[in-house]
């Protein structure tokens, strides 16, 4: 564990030493949980997700093994139930559009689908709001962008899982059999803390 000296002004609570980095002070509310480099697999999964955070945030930078894949989240809690849906608004440089899908087993993060490049990273951020609660359906706010030097698209959307179960696992997938995550693709899961 690295130790860093902090100034008194950096300490928000009086109970903490002003000489020792206690990790929590520096860490803030966004806490890395796990990060994978995605190499030559269609699917990567996060399992045993701690239930101690208020929200989750997934950051993806992905290149497909060949053009035509997508970025999607599925297999929530190990199930493929068709209780997922999403709505998006996006643009491709010339047209703004909105679309939706319902009664499906995945949430797609890139609205044109099949647009992920094999050379240029597509980036996406997905926020799982209140993922650990057991009384409401689960919302995922997502943003994605892939600019291909004149083509490509950007997307803003919300997905829903019609289940009150807390989310403890899910997969990141290209959604297309035979298309893999290319070298350098990375996905990182963060927890967003609430409480002191």
């Amino acid at each position, binding site marked *: 564990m690295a130790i*860093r000296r*902090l100034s008194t002004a*950096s300490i*928000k609570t009086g109970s903490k030493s002003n000489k020792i980095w206690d990790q929590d002070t*520096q*860490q*803030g*509310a*966004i806490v890395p949980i796990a990060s994978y480099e995605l190499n030559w697999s269609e699917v990567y999964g996060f399992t045993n997700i701690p239930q101690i955070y*208020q*929200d989750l945030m997934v950051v993806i930078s992905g290149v497909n093994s060949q053009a035509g894949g997508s970025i999607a989240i599925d297999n929530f809690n190990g199930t493929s139930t068709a209780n997922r*849906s*999403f*709505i*998006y*608004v*996006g*643009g491709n440089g010339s047209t*703004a*559009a*909105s*679309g*939706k*899908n*319902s*009664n499906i087993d995945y949430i797609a993060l890139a609205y044109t689908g099949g647009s992920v490049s094999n050379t240029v990273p597509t980036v996406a951020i997905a*926020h799982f*709001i*209140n993922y650990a*609660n057991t*009384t*409401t*359906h689960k*919302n*995922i*706010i997502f*943003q994605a962008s892939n600019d291909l030097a004149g083509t490509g698209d950007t997307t*803003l*959307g*919300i*997905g*829903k899982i*019609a289940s*009150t179960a807390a989310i403890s696992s899910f997969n990141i997938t290209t959604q297309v059999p035979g298309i893999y995550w290319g070298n350098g693709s990375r996905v990182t899961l963060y927890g*967003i*803390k*609430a*409480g*002191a």
Partner: protein
Amino acid sequence: MTMHWIAGQTSTGSTGVFSFTNIPQTFQHLQIRITARSTYTGAENMFMRINNSSSSWWSGHALGGQGTSAYAASYTSNSYADFTAIANGSQSANVFSAAIIDIFDYASTTKNKTIKLIGGFDNNGSGYMEIRGALALTTGAITDIHQLGGTAVGGANVLAAGSRADLYGITSNPIATGA
């Protein structure tokens, strides 16, 4: 840059609006992460007021989609920041809205206040997703968010049980970079 939790509120089913008072002036930006449902059964938007004021200093723009087409909208001289549609009592059970609201340079006393929201709700293929910008024509530092909820708040219309909002402060100090 690091993000730090400041406060959170959960509705047990009798909360009209969320409010955050005495907001520390020590951060660069604020972020609110909210999931909410109104008990009202008509169309209703999420809204916000600041600094215990109902001044008509708000204007804003929206880009959104409801699943079939994109749309844009705007407003001026509002007494509140008019945000995205909130899931309400006419939606299926347990359907809630979600939104992330960024409040930039909230402690500034020289700039008007600019706010960005992304959010919406999905009710198995119906609903809305939007990005909205809001402007408050006031240079006063934001010290409280005294109303955050649905525009139809009042009487029996409240935030449904399970609604929750968390307020975070975002720093701009160099600690996060290790410098």
